[in-house]
């Protein structure tokens, strides 16, 4: 279920179209020798994943939407009772949720930094550098590490007393390095650094693959026309890899706004230092984390309000992705 979390592809429409033709292309010249049998087996085989989607995505969402207009005790569906739009009122007036969206935007900074790092690294590695392959392999390692292990790692690094980072900063002459665990301004940036450390591995691979796909003959033509390296990058390379960059940017926005694991684990690991449930003054409360807290807290509305908030988050994410898509017309080119 959650394994598909990162497999979300924003431009699914176009992809579907491209793929649909790929799927039909392999169809042999029509000979209906297997007739109905092939018809039945084909349909059954093909719809198995959709049955799973129906049972474990459509049905739960349907139930969640129905309960948005109701109230109930905990998860006990038998205590369900109609209460109109009260949950919506609660959700819209939930200041913590709207603030958590800003935290989510802060988290997208990590992914954007990761994207920039991936472009630079992939550009360097595409120059056929000796040992480049080894670097690619190493740079990808953080991507396969669990957020649990990575959080433990970075909590050690940021630890205010006796931690590596602050000792280093003090060594460099910073007299009072930030108290990462207790200071509400610094707390979210600690999450950003942690996420940004993990993020580039995937981007490097994708950008490298995109760069390798650029048609060599276009460079030849550009060289013939006397284009400088600089010009070649902006007129050939950048447009050619722009669809991949757009994909990565959309994924970054999506993952940033959906941050949960690292925020939740950091909050737990630093809970001895502060009183908030998500860092000092809830500075690390991302939207999904807030939804999780709401779900587990009947006083805040429990499951029904959590469902409304999930719906709101879904709408916000869709809007952000739609704006991103609209803006992409300014810089993404699909001509290559």
């Amino acid at each position, binding site marked *: *279920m959650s394994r598909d979390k990162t497999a979300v592809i924003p431009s699914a429409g176009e992809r579907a179209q491209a793929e649909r033709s790929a799927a039909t292309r392999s169809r042999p010249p029509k000979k209906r020798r297997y007739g109905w049998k092939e018809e039945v087996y084909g349909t059954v085989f093909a719809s198995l994943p959709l049955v799973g989607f129906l049972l474990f995505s459509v049905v739960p969402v349907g139930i969640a939407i129905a309960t948005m207009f109701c109230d109930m005790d905990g998860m006990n569906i038998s205590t369900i009772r109609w209460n109109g739009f009260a949950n919506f009122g609660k959700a819209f007036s939930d200041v913590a949720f709207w603030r958590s969206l800003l935290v989510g935007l802060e988290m997208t900074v990590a992914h954007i930094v990761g994207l920039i790092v991936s472009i630079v690294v992939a550009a360097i590695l595409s120059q056929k550098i000796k040992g480049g392959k080894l670097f690619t392999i190493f740079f990808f390692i953080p991507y396969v590490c*669990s957020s649990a292990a990575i959080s433990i790692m970075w909590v050690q690094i940021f630890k205010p007393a006796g931690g590596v980072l602050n000792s280093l900063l003090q060594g460099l002459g910073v007299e009072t390095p930030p108290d990462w665990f207790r200071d509400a301004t610094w707390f979210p940036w600690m999450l950003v650094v942690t996420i940004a450390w993990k993020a580039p591995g995937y981007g490097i691979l994708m950008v490298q693959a995109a760069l390798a796909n650029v048609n060599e003959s276009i460079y030849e033509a550009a060289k013939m026309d006397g284009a400088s390296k600089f010009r070649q990058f902006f007129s050939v390379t950048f447009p050619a890899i722009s669809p991949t960059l757009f994909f990565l940017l959309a994924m970054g926005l999506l993952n940033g706004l959906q941050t949960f694991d690292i925020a939740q684990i950091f909050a737990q690991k630093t809970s001895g230092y502060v009183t908030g449930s998500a860092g000092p003054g809830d500075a690390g409360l991302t939207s999904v984390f807030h939804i999780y807290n709401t779900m587990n807290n009947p006083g805040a509305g429990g499951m029904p309000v959590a469902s409304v908030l999930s719906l709101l988050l879904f709408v916000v994410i869709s809007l952000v992705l739609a704006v991103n898509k609209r803006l992409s017309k300014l810089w993404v080119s699909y001509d290559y």
Partner: protein
Amino acid sequence: MASPSAFPQDGKKRKNRVKEDTGSIVFKIVAYILLVFGLVLVVVPFFIIVSTSLQDRNVNVFAWWPEKSGWDAYELVFTSDRSNILVGFLNTMWIVVPSMLVSLFVSGLAAFAYAKLHFRAKNILYAITIATMSIPGTVLMMPSYLWYSILGWAQSPLPLIIPGCFGSAAAVFFFTQYFSGIPQSLVEAGQMDGMSFLRCYITVMIPLAVPAFVGQGILAFVGGYNDYMGPLLYLSRTDIKTLAFMLVELQSYYGAQKNSDAISCAGAVVALIPIIALYLAGHKFFVGGLTAGGVKE
């Protein structure tokens, strides 16, 4: 570079060439400095948890090279009753692996139908399957809890196992592309021999697509092994703790009495070793599976 120039009399061109060479040497130096810097940034955090995990239990200040190093933390992590990391590892295995295998089989079966069989609903079903990929999954996690609690599956590993058994859209997409490259004639030959479609998939397609299956399998395994949100939602009130979930809890068990930093770092090191080893062993398959989904052809 003494490559014969087409215009030997053109001295200007020669000079340019020399300039370009020094330029590329400078580029190479800068490139290596940046890459090594990046490598240091990637490796140092790993080094830090290793050295912290070996720290003496009475020390709580970080040292790059712990003076008195001991294996206490590792001993504890492996022998404790309450949060034995081996138990966590085995729990993760039986939750992740069977579901992953079934998922691969089902995704491949659907892809086999899309790539090799013809039936009327093909295009529409394929379009729906691909469209399901664009739904942000994390947002669905909380609302789904109610459904699983109605089914009586909440606080059991079933929500982590059963939905996965129906395959994943991303894998279907990947396998369909892969299978399209396998000649149709092989499937037809199988059918001539009177094979059923299922048999044909198992005996003809799967053996020809082993790299694709390995790649998607590793991807799915890494996802399941590292999953934190699922176990947090569905297993936090049970005795079944998966590895990733256990890591976060480790410290709180021993918080007050001992050097808890060393213990949680030891746990993290132990948890990271298998997954990094798997990645290094299978990165070729892995990488192909990842980039196929995102690069516009």
